[in-house]
């Protein structure tokens, strides 16, 4: 369980997030929705440790946790970026196994076996030796998911998972996210697409542009 307590984030004197409280329960999906400029992505970047918050605290299973400085390999938060950010010079397999071998010190064989399972699970079994430029948008996204899952995260976060894909792929992404939920994965999804958010979410967080400015 991840709890955010009184989280505040500002850039200079612009406050983007003010005293935000939200709880993400294990195995559930939290959708963060709101108009663009409301700070959805900023909030996600705080949760994933890409931005440092100015106030408030994070608790994982009741224990204080700072995503920005956390270096332990527990309490890992995985991220699927809007543009996936695969490593273009590495094959699908290398994209997935790089961090497990370098950071978790898994053996190459173990990491590849895990990666192959993830790829099979995501219907990418035949694509292990391809490079990102050879994949479609939907395939790239699934590689990005596999790459994040290979680090065995407690929580998987998505930034606008539908925006870089064809609209008709939306149901595919819904199925994928609900499939991972069935496997027990806790997920946080930032989206501006309300229908999509409602279809997948156990809980919704509406963020509005800060009126104080």
């Amino acid at each position, binding site marked *: 369980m991840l709890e955010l307590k009184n989280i505040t984030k500002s850039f200079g004197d612009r406050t983007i997030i003010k005293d935000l409280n939200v709880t993400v329960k294990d195995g559930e999906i939290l959708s963060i929705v709101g108009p663009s400029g409301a700070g959805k992505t900023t909030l996600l970047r705080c949760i994933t440790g890409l931005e440092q918050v100015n106030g408030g605290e994070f608790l994982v299973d009741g224990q204080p946790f700072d995503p920005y400085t956390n270096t332990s390999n527990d309490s890992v938060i995985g991220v699927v970026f809007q543009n996936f950010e695969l490593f273009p010079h590495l094959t699908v397999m290398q994209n997935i196994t790089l961090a497990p071998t*370098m950071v978790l010190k898994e053996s190459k064989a173990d990491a590849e076996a895990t990666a192959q399972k993830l790829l099979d699970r995501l219907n990418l079994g035949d694509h292990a030796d391809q490079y990102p430029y050879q994949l479609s948008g939907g395939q790239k996204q699934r590689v990005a998911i596999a790459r994040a899952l290979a*680090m065995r995260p407690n929580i998987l976060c998505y930034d606008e998972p539908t925006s870089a894909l064809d609209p008709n792929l939306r149901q595919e992404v819904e199925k994928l996210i609900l499939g991972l939920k069935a496997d027990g994965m806790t997920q946080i999804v930032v989206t501006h697409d309300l229908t999509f958010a409602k279809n997948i979410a156990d809980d919704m967080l509406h963020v509005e542009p800060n009126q104080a400015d």
Partner: protein
Amino acid sequence: MHYILEILPSLISGAGMTLQIFLWTLVGSLPLGLVLSLGLNSKFKPLKWLIDFYVWLMRGTPLLLQLIVVFYGLPLIGIVFERYEAALFAFILNYAAYFAEIFRGGLQSIDNGQYESARVLRLSYWQTIRKIVIPQVVKIVLPSVGNEVINLIKDSSLVYVIGLGDLLRAGNVATARDVTLVPLMLVGVIYLLLTAVTTFVLRRVEKHYSYWK
């Protein structure tokens, strides 16, 4: 023809010096340029200013002058180099400055998302540089580096100023002695052969990196 065979040994031994300067300068200046370019992108401003100054100095004065300063000037403050070492020292420092600027451009063209993607996978700074950034930078900068490499073959002829016998000097000596342009024409042909081989190697290296886009 007989005359050509007569002067060829001295030209070839001159070409040997040219090649030595060429190879050792690359061996020294490419890694040094890479390290300097990381410093140029550093957040620690004094380091950046220092390297900026260095690059300005090296690119802002003629290499010929730098050779003279290293060989004739530095002994005045107690630093004495042999001719050959002085030439390598000046060439490496000079070319590292150009390579640093080329690599800086390459580093800046790597999307920030790649760093963030590596960060959320918990790769360290050096792991990210080594496994994610450098392989991509190498591909981007290859054509510009190739340009400098070709330049270096011909720039190496400047070592005559501190009394080293390279290819051009060998031709000059023969021309002055025998009052004919044939040796210098031959020197031109040898330079063309050297650049042809280098161009071929550079193309092969570029081709090697064409497996991803």
